[in-house]
């Protein structure tokens, strides 16, 4: 989907982020120190940079200043909860700001928002005989358009963007229906059943015991 550069000196967190990025279909590269970023940017230009603020040798803010001319979207990751830091980050042109500890789903959601805003998001997704076109909001099975309701399409998009990750019914409601939707979790089951039937994805959309649903796609 997108090529993301992860700059984080704490190896566990760096691995955590990249393992999840891989899961939902992003490609990535890693840097552990501030100055490494510049070397890597000479070879390839990523679609997005996830940048830790506390880095050895050159901190995240200094890195941002140096790479500003490249116009690459940046999401700052930090353990500091100070307003001054957040303001400084945004002033330097950060697209978003996420604080440790964070939920993986939240990080992925923010990545998607930034990618969509910078139009680096892929416009379609193909799996088996199913093709999903985000911009046209159209779904084709065997090249034949399938009729999906607005809600079903939203749900499908959420499942694809967070594929290989189990999403609880509550989370699905929150992501596909919106925060203020006061629906029942049974609503989700009904829509999932419809999706499975319309796309022939009885095996792809798995029910995860006690958790929810997961769209399983080979990584």
């Amino acid at each position, binding site marked *: 989907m997108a090529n993301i550069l992860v700059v984080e000196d704490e190896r566990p967190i760096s691995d955590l982020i990249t*393992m999840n990025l891989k899961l939902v279909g992003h490609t990535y590269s890693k840097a552990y120190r501030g100055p490494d970023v510049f070397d890597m940017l000479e070879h390839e230009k990523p679609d997005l940079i996830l940048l830790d603020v506390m880095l*050895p040798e050159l901190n995240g803010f200094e890195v941002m200043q140096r790479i500003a001319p490249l116009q690459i979207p940046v999401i700052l990751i930090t353990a500091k909860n*100070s307003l001054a830091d957040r303001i400084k980050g945004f002033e330097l042109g950060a697209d978003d700001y996420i604080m440790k500890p964070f939920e993986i789903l939240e990080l992925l959601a923010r990545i998607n928002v930034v990618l969509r805003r910078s139009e680096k998001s892929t416009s379609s997704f193909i799996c088996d005989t199913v093709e999903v076109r985000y911009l046209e909001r159209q779904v084709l099975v065997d090249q034949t358009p399938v009729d999906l309701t607005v809600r079903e399409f939203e749900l499908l998009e959420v499942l694809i963007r967070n594929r290989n990750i189990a999403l609880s019914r509550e989370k699905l409601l929150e992501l596909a229906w919106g925060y203020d939707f006061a629906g029942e979790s049974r609503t989700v089951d009904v829509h999932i059943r419809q999706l499975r039937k319309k796309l022939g994805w009885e095996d792809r959309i798995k029910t995860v015991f006690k958790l929810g649903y997961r769209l399983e796609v080979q990584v």
Partner: protein
Amino acid sequence: MRFWHKILLAVLALFIAALDVSVIMVMKKSWQLNMDSETQRAASEQLLIANNIYENLNSIQTRGTRITPILLASVAQSYSEYYRKQGIHLQLWDNGQRVYPSRAGTPASPDSGTRDPAELLDEQSIQLSSPLPAPYQHLQLVYQRDISGLFAKQQELSRFFVMINWIVGPVLLLLLYLLIRQLTKPLKLLSETSKTIAEGDYSKRVQLRSKDEFGELALNFNRMAEAVEHRVTALSEMAEDKQRMVDNLAHELRTPLTSMQGFAEFLTTANIGEEEQQTAGRYILSETLRLKNLAFKLLDLSVLRHQALTLRKVELTELFQAVEQSEQPKLADAGIKLHLHHTIPQVWGDADLLASYLVNLIENAIHASKPGSTIQLLAYEQNGDAVLEIRDTGAGMTAEQAKRVFEPFYRGDEARSSEHGGAGLGLSFCRQIAEAHKARLSLDSVPGEGTSIRLFLQLHNNCPLIL
């Protein structure tokens, strides 16, 4: 209204009032003296005229002529004509009947020269009347003297006085303005400086070198500003220290928590293979240990802070051996030698705490040193203290780093990466141990040359009474 306005107006008003009152009083006195002398002169002149008339009448009577009103009038007229040139009018009354000047003799006319002398009794004249000596006591001589010259003189003086007021007023105003501006300059300076300080520039001082009250005020003001600046700086430094500590603690807590939470989520929700499950599990374990270490270190610090210590005799040979034993694997890994040397047999302290003190510092020294170098652990006596010293030839610290190195959570590495060492509590723990021993801790470091940390303990035989 500004202070100098008030002073200016008050002094001006007071001065003019004082001037005017005194001038008016002087003028009044001089007027009174003039009047007195005029009155006296009039009295003696009147007496002279009365006596002359008396003499005249006497001689007329001795000649046997009867004294008639006509005669009286002619006598009075002769005198009156003589004295009129000197501005003196005379009247002669006989038993309440005026005989000179006679009412019928002169026609009534409006001009003052011929007017009825009785009506000349205005303010600008002195009038006296007295009877002639006996036997003519039925005759009354009225003497009237014109003193308009005196009045004119007085009026001239008044005009002059008003003129002086008009001239002196502005001149005084100008002089007072200059004087007061000059005198209140320090006040303006003080006010401006205090305003600057109130706006937050605490480094501002009043530049005033006079020896009067203003100079004293400026001196005290500067002293106050200094004290305030000192306090404010200390407070903001304290706040900064605290913020830094909170930030660092937050980092130390958030970093392992992020991994733990993230990998636990990953394990439960992600569609992953066995290998990735293993990785996630390993990370959860290692980060849990990291957090556990932090928790226990914080606990140690807090226990040490709240627990009184029982000091005992500590054999240095045993202490050094224990430390060397526990650090041997790490020293070997890093390829660093440890050199032990003590010239005193024992110190006064807590063996376990002193051991963890030394272990902490040696581990720091190992991180700072290059392979092949030597770390020295020394014990010796200096000025009655037992000194434990750890000396390395490693990276050293800048003065700024050396200042903060004992702060909790301080790390030389600003990124606080977990590659080397822990949360930055080691040295702060060492400081706590030193404080528990009531021992002084000193650190000398030169960047690039190495660091030496000394602990000044009691010699065991020095002071066994403190228990």
